[in-house]
């Protein structure tokens, strides 16, 4: 009975994600065998551009999340820590560095180029510099300055990012003898835009009561949007997902049967603790909006591919001014009829967590949205105080129940 209930909370489409991820990593080894360059990227780098250059992008952050979800991360953490990387550093980076320091015999083929864009955090750069020191691989560091107002998406800030994209193309062409095919780039941008459109449409269906797509789905279903942008497979996955969610919405079928509380979740998910989502759901609480899952979708204009990609690199969630971020929070609270917010103060993601208290304060004082803020790590279970967190969830839901 319990396993049936568990299954009912994950969409059929979501169940295919695990296979899709393994297949994606396996194809990276195939690409490597065929002599194609493999890029290790931080997420929110221009995947579309790399794909058009025939460079195969993989994201060690994914690898970290996956290892954590499957209980395989600890050995990598310990390997990195043994070599001097502090436990206070980002757990994704400790996992990725541990993988490198333990010989790279696993899912990720060794990189031919390291590409990062400093947009969501500065750790990306330090992590990628460390990888370069260990591997001696060419490194491209791009940067997307903090977007202070929407004007920055059109002024010298945008221009700065466009020119860096051109530099990345030049570097790839010089290092690997490749040539950027603009027609191919346009096609890839169209596919990427399509997948984003589908995902945004899917997310909008969470406005339905009961909500047809839960937190467990949204945490996993973003995978194709992260590294597979610009592929037919990503579009296909999101078409199927949208159809499934539409059908559920039409039938008024929710992820949980008795939906009492509709919640916003702010943060990256705790990959080793998916059961925490179930803990909420068992108590009638469902996540209906996360800035994190929405951040992966960005509409692109195929008539201006480079400019459009540059805007995407700039406008990723955490790189937008706090007022723009809070504005989106407030829109979503109305749009998704949210009863409360859960903010995950993530020890690994200081960039995300540092301003969370003032955000929560604004939500609570100015807009009367109750919130729960709890601390843990996204990938390192050693920082997870399960019983204490569950106690706080109980208290929070009690408060919501009394309103």
């Amino acid at each position, binding site marked *: 009975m319990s396993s049936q209930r568990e299954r009912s909370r994950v969409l059929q489409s979501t169940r295919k994600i695990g296979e899709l991820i393994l297949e994606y990593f396996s194809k990276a080894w195939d690409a490597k065998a065929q002599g194609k360059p493999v890029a290790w990227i931080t997420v929110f780098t221009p995947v579309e551009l790399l794909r058009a250059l025939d460079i195969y992008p993989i994201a060690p952050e994914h690898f970290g999340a996956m290892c954590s979800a499957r209980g395989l991360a600890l050995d990598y953490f310990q390997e990195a820590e043994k*070599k*001097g*990387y*502090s436990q*206070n*550093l*980002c757990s994704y*980076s400790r996992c990725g560095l541990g993988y490198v320091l333990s010989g790279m015999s696993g899912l990720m083929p060794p990189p031919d180029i390291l590409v990062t864009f*400093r947009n969501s*955090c*500065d*750790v990306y*750069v*330090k*992590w990628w*510099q*460390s990888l*370069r*020191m260990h591997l001696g691989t060419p490194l491209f*560091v791009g*940067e997307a*300055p*903090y977007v*202070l107002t929407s004007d920055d998406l059109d002024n*010298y*800030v945008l221009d*700065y990012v466009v*020119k*860096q994209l051109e*530099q990345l193309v030049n570097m790839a062409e010089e290092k690997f003898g490749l040539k950027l095919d603009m027609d191919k780039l346009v096609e890839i941008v169209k596919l990427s835009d399509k997948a984003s459109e589908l995902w945004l449409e899917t997310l909008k269906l969470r406005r339905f009561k009961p909500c047809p797509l839960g937190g467990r789905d949204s945490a996993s279903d973003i995978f194709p949007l992260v590294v597979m942008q610009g592929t037919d497979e990503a579009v296909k996955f999101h078409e199927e997902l949208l159809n499934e969610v539409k059908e559920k919405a039409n039938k008024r079928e929710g992820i949980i049967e008795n939906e009492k509380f509709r919640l916003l979740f702010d943060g990256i998910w705790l990959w080793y603790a998916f059961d925490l989502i179930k803990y909420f759901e068992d108590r009638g609480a469902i996540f209906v909006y996360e800035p994190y899952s929405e951040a992966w979708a960005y509409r692109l204009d195929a008539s201006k591919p480079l400019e459009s990609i540059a805007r995407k690199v700039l406008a990723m969630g955490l790189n937008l*001014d*706090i*007022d723009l971020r809070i504005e989106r929070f407030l829109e979503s609270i109305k749009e998704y009829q949210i009863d409360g917010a859960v903010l995950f*103060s993530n*020890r690994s993601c*200081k*960039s995300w*967590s*540092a*301003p*969370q*208290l*003032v955000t929560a*304060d*604004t939500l609570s004082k100015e807009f009367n949205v109750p919130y729960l803020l709890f*601390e843990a790590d996204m990938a390192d279970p050693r920082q997870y105080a399960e019983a204490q967190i569950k106690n706080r969830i109980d208290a929070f839901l009690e408060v919501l129940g009394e309103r």
Partner: protein
Amino acid sequence: MTIPSDIRDLYKNPRAILSQYKDSGAKAIGYTCSYVPEELIISAGLQQYRISNIGTSTSALTPSFVCPFASAVLENMFKLEDFFSGFVVAHTCDPMWRLYDILKKKTNKPLFLLRVPHNTDNELSLEFFKMELTRFKKFLEENFEVRIDDTALFSSIELCNENRNLLKNIYLSNNGDKYETGALDRFQLALASMWMPKPEVIAQIKALDFHNCRSDNNVRLHLNGTSVYDLDLIKIIEESGGFVASDDLCTGSRYFWSNVEKSNDPLSALAYRYLKRTPCPSHGPLEDRLEYLSFMTRGFNVQGVITFAEGFCDPILYDSVHIRNMLTKNGIPATLIDYENPTQEIARIKTRVEAFIESIGG
């Protein structure tokens, strides 16, 4: 305005000078980081004042795992808010960047975020940084109803260059294997330079005589890290038989090592100086930092390297692995000492410092 009788004492209570600014009608601009060009603040007729982490605990507005230095700087900004006419924050690392977010929601004072490019080694970054400095200039002009012309800029550049020259000359008195100037004196002057009006600090430095160092047989050390305002950390090194011959702190040599070059275009010259200066661990290619460290350890005949790391300082914690690897290869002993509150942890830090100095023959 009354200037402290001995500028070397100012570090003990840097906020004292803020009341003097307020009483005299001088408008103080609080800034957080050595990537902020003091020259622009001064050319607007405003008083530069770099906000430290001392005299306060961390802010309740940041999580416990965010750099305690950045958090304490934030707390000081709130505590001392009445003394300031505006704030300038630089995006260097994540916590410093996010101070801006928090301040934006909590202060009514004019606030500016200077977006400092990470890449210090290309023309695009220079162009971008010049645009940022232009925006900063406009911010100062609009908020303080002043006009910053080239003459004012050239004059403030000259003042700051003179200040840096003086600090660097004192610093260079210890090069090779010389023991001329104690580190405590050097750091006191660098800090005073961030807090005091430039003409006064220049005049007082010129009047001082430093050739009184009594550390002749101490172990020559290089101090690696970010910012050290709590000079007890320097004292304990000297008391433990160490001599800080060189450093790459932004409250030390990184603050004054390079000057603004003469140019007809002052904003370009400033952009060049501040981007190409000795990099912070958060900035530029790691190879540049390693090269600078090698240059310092060779130039000042250093026997060991101490890294002071604020707990949760990501840039230092990543770099320290590679710094240690490089120094080990070069046969230079190195140690990393981390802390969250140096005042409270001073005894533990001292034990670590003593053990390290002993281990290299001090």
